[in-house]
C-alpha cells in the first residue's frame, strides 16, 4: 500500500555507491487519480531544503525502467498504474546528508480534457522526509 500523500516516506534515499553518491531518489505515488500513459507526464521539479532541481534534468524510474524527460514525453505505450510507485531520480554529486529534509515535488501532468493553453497541470506537494543512509 502507498502512503496517502504524494511524497512517500520510504524510498527517499541516496543513489550510487556509498562514499561516491551520484544523487538521490524521491518515491511518489502517481500524481493523478487514474493510471497514466507516460507521455502525459511532463516531468517533476524537486526542491530539497530550498535547492531547486528543475524538471528538465530529473528522470523517472518506474518498475525496471528509467526515463529522461525527452523519453517520457515520447513514451506513448508504457503506462504508470494507479497502484504503482515511481521514483524521481535527481543528480547531485555526493548525495544528501542523512537526516530530515524539506522535500517538495512539483509534478507536471497533462490533461487533454483541460483547455490547451492550461493543459499542463502543476501538482505541488511538500513535506519533511528523512533520508536514512548518507
Amino acid at each position: 500500500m502507498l502512503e496517502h500523500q504524494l511524497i512517500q516516506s520510504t524510498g527517499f534515499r541516496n543513489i550510487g555507491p556509498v562514499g561516491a553518491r551520484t544523487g538521490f531518489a524521491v518515491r511518489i505515488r502517481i500524481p493523478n487519480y487514474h493510471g497514466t500513459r507516460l507521455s502525459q507526464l511532463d516531468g517533476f521539479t524537486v526542491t530539497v531544503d530550498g535547492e531547486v532541481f528543475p524538471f528538465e534534468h530529473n528522470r523517472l524510474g518506474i518498475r525496471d525502467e528509467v526515463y529522461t524527460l525527452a523519453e517520457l514525453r515520447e513514451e506513448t505505450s508504457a503506462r504508470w498504474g494507479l497502484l504503482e510507485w515511481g521514483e524521481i531520480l535527481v543528480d547531485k554529486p555526493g548525495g544528501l546528508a542523512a537526516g530530515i529534509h524539506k522535500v517538495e515535488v512539483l509534478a507536471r501532468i497533462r490533461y487533454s480534457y483541460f483547455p490547451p493553453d492550461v493543459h499542463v497541470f502543476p501538482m505541488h506537494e511538500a513535506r519533511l522526509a528523512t533520508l536514512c543512509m548518507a
Partner: protein
Amino acid sequence: MGSLKYGVSVYSYVNDFGSVMTLEDAFDHIADTGATGIEILGEGQVEGYPEPSAAWLDTWFGLVDRYKLEPTNMCSWIDTRVTLTRNLTVEEGAADLAQDLRLAHRLGFKFLRPKFGVTSHELDPDPQWEAYVERNLDLAHQLGVVICPEIHAPTPIKHRVTDAYIAFIERTGTKNFGLMIDTGIFQDRPLTHWGSHQINDEMRQHMAFLNGIAVPPEQFLEIAQYVVFIQAKFHDIDDSLEDLNIPWRPVMSAILRSGYSGWLSSEYEGLRSPWRAIDQVRRQQVLLRKLEAEYEAGLLA
C-alpha cells in the same frame, strides 16, 4: 420497490484506493451500502490496463460473484494531445476507444464513458470525437455497450456541447450512444474543499465553477430521453444527512418524474481525508433512497 438502480463508483474512494483500500475492500464497502452496481475507472482499477492478466481477470470475476455487484460503467480517457508535438489521429483515437469498449465488455460493463480532449475554455470536445464514436458504433452494438460522454460542470445542459451529442444521436439513430449526467451540474452552493485542499479566494476566481453552475433541475426533463447513466456527484453530506452542495430534493424529483430507470452511481468528490469517502457514500445512498421513498409516497413534489 423503486425504479432506480443504485451503484457506487470506485472513483469515490480515490486517494484511499491503493493506500488504505484494496479492490476487494472497495467491493466490500460498496456492497454493504445496499448498492447493487459497481462503476470503475478502467485505467485505475484494472491492474495491467489495457491488458489485465488472466490472474487479475479471475480476481475480478471472483469479486463480482462474491459481492454480487453488477458492473455498470467503466470510465476511460482519450489522450487527444498524446505528445507535446502531436495529436492522436482519428484512427488512433478510434482504436483507443475500441480497446476500451472491448475491455469494458470483457469485464461485464454495459456503459463506457470516454473523456475526449477539448479545444477551448468552454470545453468543446475535439471535433474528432464524432469520428471516434461513429467508427465504433457497430462494435459497441455487437458488444452491447453504450458509449456515454459526460455532461460535467462547467458545461451545463443547455449548451452546444450537449446539443451536438443529441444531434449525433438523432442523426445516427443509434442506441449505443447516450448522455451521462454528472449531478455536479446542479451544485448550487460553493465547495469548501478541492481534493485534499481547502479552497481559497484565488482558486475561486480562477475556477468559478467551484461555486456551482446551478443548472435548474427541471432541465433534466428536457434531455431525459437521451440520458443513459447518472453519476450522482456529491461533495459533503453533513451529520444531519443534508447535502451541502447538491439540491437533491428537486434533482431526485426531476429524475423520478422523467421516468429515468437506470443507474444512479454515487460519485463522491469531497475532502480527500483518509477513510472519509466510505461513510460519505453510505450517507448518500441513504439520502437518495429516502428521497425515492418519499417520492413514491407522494411526499416529494
